[in-house]
């Protein structure tokens, strides 16, 4: 029994870590730009596909391909910001949100045209699981890296926001765009940073997701939808809230289904059952007032 629970907790941590990387970018974009980026899941998919191209088709080693993939996706993020979101920045927040819905279906179609509908594997090699904690837990190398790297990146993002000049500027823009402008913080710079960082984090999540479940054009949809609820669960714009929300979703999905509390056919509904339940109790999100890193 304890082995079952340990393995379920590990599964939940892996899922939670991937959701957290996606949710982190979403909450940053929401905090600074003021809307939910619906095409974030497609950025996750693009990250996985560009890694696959470099690693499997071109034949680079894992680490250089991953770095190159993340850098190229950061550029994708910058391009989206420059050409799709900057021109409508002063419109009603509904406008960029609707544009991001358009980008989401458009990017999926582009992936479909380039790579076809079939499910592709991310690597030619197969990886075997390692036993951790005296055989209680089975984990693949990519899962271990996913959890470790996610924790480093989450800590890094929080430090970046609080300790660096740019991070403080971002928080200033998040709390009041006009005042920030008065103090010489350029909104364009802030937006570039936020979309670049968000896309980079999503690309990392995409690569690990590709190792977990192979590649398909719609692969980003489910994780993005889970990340949306993580972001709302932790109060939109809050960095720590989104991270905690993500792990809460990952762990509860794993434990509720794994221990037979909820039938497995309902798995896809669990993040939203938690979300709606929580919103009824605390409409501002779990950490509504206390925990906001971006919005003070």
């Amino acid at each position: 029994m304890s082995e079952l629970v340990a393995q379920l907790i590990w599964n939940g941590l892996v899922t939670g870590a991937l959701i957290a990387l996606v949710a982190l970018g979403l909450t940053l974009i929401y905090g600074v730009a003021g809307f939910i980026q619906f095409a974030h899941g497609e950025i996750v998919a693009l990250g996985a596909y560009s890694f696959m191209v470099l690693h499997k088709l071109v034949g680079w080693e894992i680490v250089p391909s991953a770095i190159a993939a993340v850098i190229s996706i950061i550029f994708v993020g910058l391009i989206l910001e420059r050409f799709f979101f900057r021109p409508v920045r002063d419109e009603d927040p509904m406008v960029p949100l609707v544009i991001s819905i358009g980008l989401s279906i458009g990017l999926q179609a582009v992936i479909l045209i380039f790579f076809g509908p079939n499910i592709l594997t991310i690597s030619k090699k197969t990886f075997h699981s390692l036993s951790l904690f005296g055989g209680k837990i089975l984990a693949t190398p990519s899962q271990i890296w996913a959890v470790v790297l996610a924790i480093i990146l989450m800590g890094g993002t929080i430090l970046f926001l609080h300790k660096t000049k740019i991070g403080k500027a971002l928080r200033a823009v998040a709390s009041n765009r006009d005042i920030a402008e008065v103090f010489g913080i350029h909104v364009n710079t802030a937006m570039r940073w936020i979309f670049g960082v968000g896309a980079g984090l999503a690309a990392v999540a995409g690569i690990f997701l590709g190792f977990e479940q192979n590649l398909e054009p719609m692969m980003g949809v489910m994780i993005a939808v889970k990340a949306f609820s993580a972001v709302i669960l932790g109060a939109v714009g809050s960095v720590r809230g989104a991270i905690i929300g993500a792990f809460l979703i990952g762990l509860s999905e794993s434990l509720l289904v794994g221990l037979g509390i909820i039938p497995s056919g309902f798995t896809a509904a669990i993040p939203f059952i938690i979300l709606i339940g929580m919103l009824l109790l605390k409409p501002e999100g779990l950490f509504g007032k206390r925990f906001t890193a971006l919005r003070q």
Partner: protein
Amino acid sequence: MIEYFFSLVIITAIWALLAQSYNLSFGLTGLFNLGHIIFYGVGAYTAAILNTKYGWGFLENIGAAALFSGIFAAGFGLLTLRLSGHYLAIATLGAAMIASVIATNWISLTNGPLGIRGIDEPEIFGITIEADSLLFVLLYVTVVLLVNILLYKLFHSPFGRLLRAIKDDEIAAQAAGKNTFKAKTWSLILSAAFAGIAGALYTHYRLFLDPTIFALPEIIVLVLMVVVGGRGNFWGAILGTILVIFIGELPRFIGFPDSIIGASRNIMYAALLIGTMFWKPKGLFTFFEKK
């Protein structure tokens, strides 16, 4: 050939009603509810179940679907309407996901992924009306027109103006002594009832129903129709519906290879959506209004 044209008219009519009902809550009242498809699905399942299990006919089913979707929306509204903006959007998107999961798993009620078959064609005064016949088109267009006239009156009634005021500035409406929560709930209930009618129409046309009716692409198409035409504008939703269905049928005729028909349709939808937002963020209808 003419039957194909008829089938497009019928589909356009059903979607025009659905889009218009969404326009009432999302466009006019400003409730960013991404779960509107639930009410359409609830209406469709109500009609399918009443027809196959209890033998109810077309007209009774339309009434039952409207009633049931409306009651369902009352509960839904009590749960979600305290939320606003993005909270409401994500919570309702999640509700649509939950609805799809329930429809898939509640086998005894919905027959799950196997779907409900053997639904009857509409029968009025003892005459069975065959799909894609002229009579069928007339019946559906009449129903949709009647409901749309009702909606037009609603849009331009004092209640409609109150809803518009809530969208523009809810606090000001409250300050003017209006119970905005009650108004929003009623807007959602009415909008859901009309969506339920659209669902019943769909059921009696397709004669087959499965849980894919709640799928994400359907939600996006619905948002597309209302946003492209013009949120909160009565004619905008109709314009949006016609445009979206027209564009959706185009790739079939242009002669794209099959492998990219679906993808090319989505790229056109994306271009339409993004282009509208850049060019006329209030919807393409404003193009005509300025004259």
